[in-house]
């Protein structure tokens, strides 16, 4: 019978069927292809740095006195002749040093890409990104996890139907609006509050010093209020606002996905509601909570507009959270528009992009392959 039906199908139909299925398969592969393309093409634009082919990295041989360095920025200087004479005495030994130094330059702690002797130390950028991300997480994680616990276990059904959409409203705030919000209100608020808490911080630092002498200096270094308006703290609050909806929603989903039988069993054994929530349900949903925090880190790490607007954008090598910082993403965002295309600086900005991409990819791979699998295994029997 089936064979008979099959025979009756016109050939065109079979061809359409075949084309449709494979067309859809090919289109579906776009998501994978794009991931590869992102990596390849961001890598390609950073190629000048990675393969050492950028003009700035080529050893300066004698023949570059004329012609070859047409495109070098120096040639546009009014004192071209002088530059050439300065460069000539450079012996082969200094050439080698120069060639080697780009990676040392990258590992340095000054980011000063414009100028006669550009410095591309990415350490302050990494430190800045780390600081902002940490501030954002310290603020957002407890708040959103506790709120998710409330929404999942303690709130009435009606209230819960209000909490979730309200937090989704926060998720709908474009990041540029959050950045603007930081700029106009949070900066003032933080400046107002910090004048009050400095004595408290000092007292805490000396108290800490009596227990651990090293911690005292570190704490003072990390928490002394500075006169700067924009800082990793202000930016961290802004990023926290961006991260809260992510952590809240995923945690809430994970908590709600824990089988009801867990809760009933715990209550039946005589545990109170909060004991059930904190000692049974939360541990059961822990992988989901970890995934939520990880994805929050990913978001905070790569967020551009808020960091660009509220962190002050100064690449300082300092642990103080009240100092301005410049994050990786903000550096890309503010400098790519103005950089000379194809220059070493341009290559390095794309290199920073690769760093961001690798971090986000890793975080996602961990949540995808490790955390979710764990979660699935855990509840398969339940």
């Amino acid at each position: 019978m089936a064979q008979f039906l099959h025979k009756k199908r016109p050939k065109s139909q079979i061809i359409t069927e075949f084309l449709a299925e494979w067309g859809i398969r090919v289109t579906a592969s776009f998501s994978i292809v794009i991931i590869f393309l992102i990596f390849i093409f961001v890598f390609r634009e950073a190629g000048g740095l990675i393969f050492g082919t950028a003009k700035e990295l080529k050893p300066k041989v004698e023949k570059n006195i004329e012609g070859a360095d047409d495109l070098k920025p120096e040639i546009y200087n009014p004192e071209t002749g002088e530059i050439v004479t300065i460069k000539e005495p450079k012996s082969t030994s200094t050439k080698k040093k120069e060639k080697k130094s780009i990676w040392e330059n990258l590992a340095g702690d000054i980011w000063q890409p414009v100028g006669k002797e550009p410095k591309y130390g990415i350490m302050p950028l990494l430190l800045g990104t780390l600081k902002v991300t940490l501030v954002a997480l310290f603020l957002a994680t407890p708040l959103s996890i506790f709120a998710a616990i409330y929404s999942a276990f303690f709130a009435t059904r009606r209230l819960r139907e209000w909490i979730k959409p309200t937090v989704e409203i926060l998720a709908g705030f474009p990041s540029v609006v959050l950045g603007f919000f930081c700029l106009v209100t949070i900066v003032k608020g933080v400046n107002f509050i910090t004048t009050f808490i400095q004595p408290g911080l000092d007292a805490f630092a000396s108290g800490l010093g009596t227990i651990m002498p090293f911690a005292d200096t570190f704490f003072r270094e990390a928490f002394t209020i500075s006169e700067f308006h924009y800082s990793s703290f202000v930016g961290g609050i802004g990023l926290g606002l961006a991260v809260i909806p992510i952590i809240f929603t995923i945690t809430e989903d994970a908590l709600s996905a824990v089988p009801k039988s867990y809760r009933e069993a715990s209550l039946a054994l005589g545990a109170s509601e909060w004991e059930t929530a904190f000692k049974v349900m939360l541990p059961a949903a822990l992988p989901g909570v970890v995934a939520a925090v990880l994805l929050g880190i990913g978001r905070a790490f790569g967020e551009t507009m808020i960091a660009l607007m509220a962190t002050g954008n100064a690449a300082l090598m300092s642990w103080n959270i009240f100092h301005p910082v410049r994050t990786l993403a903000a550096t890309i965002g503010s400098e790519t528009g103005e950089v000379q295309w194809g220059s070493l600086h341009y290559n390095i900005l794309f290199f920073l992009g690769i760093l961001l991409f690798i971090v986000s990819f890793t975080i996602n791979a961990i949540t995808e392959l490790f955390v979710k699998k764990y979660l699935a295994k855990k509840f398969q029997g339940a």
Partner: protein
Amino acid sequence: MNPESVAHKKNNKRFIEYFAKGVPAFSAYALIILIILMLAHFIWHGLPGLSWAFLTEAPRNNNTEGGIFPAIYGTVILVFIMSLLGVPIGTATAVYLSEYAKQSSIFARSVRFGVNTLAGVPSIVFGLFGVGFFMQFIGKGIDTTLGSDIWSKPSLLWSAATLSVLTLPVVIVSVEEALRTVPHELRAASLALGATKWQTIWKVVLPNSLTGILTGSILAIGRGAGEVAPVIFVGAVYSLPELPSSLTDQFMHMGYHIYVLATQSPNAAEALPLQYSSTLVLLLLAFSLNITAGLIRMRIRKNNS
């Protein structure tokens, strides 16, 4: 155990319970109040400057007067082209994931992994991708074959393409959800009548999930309209003498407009009222889209339960 210590323990427990229930409640309420205050802040400051003229005029006098029409126009055109490019691809991917894929197959799992990864890539990296792939590779390729010089420049088209890649996961996730709500009986009935799989998808499944596709596009538009970082280098500009008229033109963008006004304006204080209004317009645009999508979604769920 003496009764006193039992009472003490009980007291202790009550104390912990007080905290264990109080802290989550406090967090939840604090969060909601914070969000409401933020909304109120923008409405309070932005509403007075909002007028018909503001929406329909071009900015004048360093953005201290006039409106933001070119920015609204640029943003709307941008997200329109973006959805033309992104929604078909997203829908096809969702159709694959829900209709064709064997959930355990390596290909299906890698597609899913790709979608999730794409959702987590920082938006600024998409901007770099737009430069490296669309402008420097495709644009330059077109230019060298045609002998022109406009395609490798920042433009509306490349911005829209970049954003469509960025919003692809949004489309895929919500269309797939909609496809899954189409009852199995419909597919079975169609197949039993002798329709092929593709006919079933094209004539039964897709029409029945049209609202879902719409939701996906709306959500993607809401997301795309608010993203600034990806379009900074691929086409958005701060001010333009004319409205963009072709795909290779640059355009004004509301988010970018807000960013530049907030950080680089020569007279920030004077521009502030209009800036609040611009922000409010952007928020209203994003929220009205999100709320519409939410309502449609709720209706789909209700119809299917």
